[in-house]
């Protein structure tokens, strides 16, 4: 199957990826090839098959609701691009 330029732009927006026009052109062909390859799946008979979430069908473990981590705000914020007074800085959201 092929994917249209409009659809690529919509998906790129959902993924918050900005594409140049030249990139969109190259992507039309390559994404269509990939989706075409993936479409082989549609021909397989999967009636009554349970989707597989974990190879050994393990389920999410529960743990006691206890505090185990210490506050490492300074360590974590040391790798952030911009912080101030212990807060992460982003462009103004509310005018």
């Amino acid at each position: 199957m092929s994917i249209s330029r409009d659809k690529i732009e919509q998906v790129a927006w959902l993924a918050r990826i900005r594409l140049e026009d030249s990139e969109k052109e190259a992507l039309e062909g390559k994404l269509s090839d990939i989706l075409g390859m993936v479409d082989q799946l549609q021909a397989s008979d999967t009636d009554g098959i349970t989707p597989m979430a974990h190879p050994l069908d393990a389920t999410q473990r529960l743990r006691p609701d206890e505090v185990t981590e210490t506050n490492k705000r300074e360590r974590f914020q040391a790798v952030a691009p911009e912080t101030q007074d212990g807060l992460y800085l982003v462009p103004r959201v509310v005018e």
Partner: protein
Amino acid sequence: MHTSTLSELARALEAGETTSEALTRETLERIRAHDGRYNSFITVAEERALEQARAADQARTEGRAGPLTGIPFAHKDIFCTEDLLTTCGSRMLENFAPPYNSTVAQKLDDAGAVCVGKANMDEFAMGSSNETSYFGPVTNPWGDGLVPGGSSGGSAAAVAARLVPAATATDTGGSIRQPAALCGLTGLKPTYGRISRYGIIAFASSLDQAGTLTRDARDAALMLNTMAGFDPKDSTSLDREVPDYCASLDNDLSGLRIGLPKEYFSDELSPEMAEQVRNAVREYENLGATVKEISLPHSHLAVAAYYVIAPAEASANLSRFDGVRYGHRCENPQDLNDLYLRSRSEGFGEEVKRRILVGTYALSAGFFDAYYLKAQKVRRLIQQDFTDAFNEVDLIMGPTSPSPAFAQGDKTDDPINMYLEDVFTIASNLAGLPAMSIPGGMVNNLPVGLQIIGNYFDEARMLNAAHRFQQVTDWHQQVAPNGV
């Protein structure tokens, strides 16, 4: 000392023939002198490594040394190492020094192993040739202009060039085994959940598994002894006992039942490759194993299922890179969306963007059932193929990759062709099974990998089979012509 295996170095350290500091200095010196040719390291951790080496020597004098104490090795640059740059091969994380250790890094630190640096890799582990790294391609020591495979190409090239005796790696669709095959190494991807994923930068969480690239099976067993085990910090880690993988290496192979999937000897495999793999399997018959043909009837769907599941999970995992908490941030963002859009577009490379888009598409409204859910059902069928096969055989063998090392640039413009590099390796990730690649022959003077797939948690049997093979063959001792 650089021609020695990890086990030989461990013996030399134990016998007092050398010190970790001497070994580490020699290793750092060789990386400095020769890695320009391979580009296998992104970061070399000189000071840190020498400190670790001196601490290892101290531990030995105090009688606290284990088998890995003082051994220099490399981490794939996907394992978070505290305060040591961890880039994942991406501009996005060019300046990221993690505030914590991955469990694997912590365990190897605790064992006294000496991390000399972080190995190059395909960006976010997406690639089969190590050509998508922001830090440049890696060259295979088996020939200038040849790819080392990927995504753990730096780990593989560093071991094949004899810069380090061992390296950590990760395997989501073949990223340990295919580089092992192309570089003439022993690569081990254990059962999903055997080694903690905590602190490994996530690509496709239901498929990712850490493992090793080493010169032989004994060294892989030594590494696995330290790396394996339950970790409460990894929600999919499995709580099973960790056996001593070295203890069973010499077990007799009489009566071992080996299955050869007929689907793995199809048109995708050249006759020369098939012949090498069949010759290798014949050695197992000489060792007392029985060999029969088996069928994995859904094999042809593995690549398609993988290229839905892996990109879908990647698109979710990589949404965390938003230019706010860590990683690349664009200059002068105008508003929040501009911050997201430009930080991500500048930070990610072409292949990563492509997979994020495929994954976002597959998960988007109206497509989820047709793609992701369908792929997860096919995944169950693929797993069932293996379950049926393991009722009849103990191990499955076949080729690791369709061809030996190929030329840089050969497949970069053709994603599908590149994806087919992993046509034989992907199925064991989908099923969560342990699998290895060991050197099993040569075509055109380049190494050919023999793949060994085991049942769940049967790493000991795979390592036993690999080790016995390596005692009667010398493919694993062939030296890359451009090695050090």
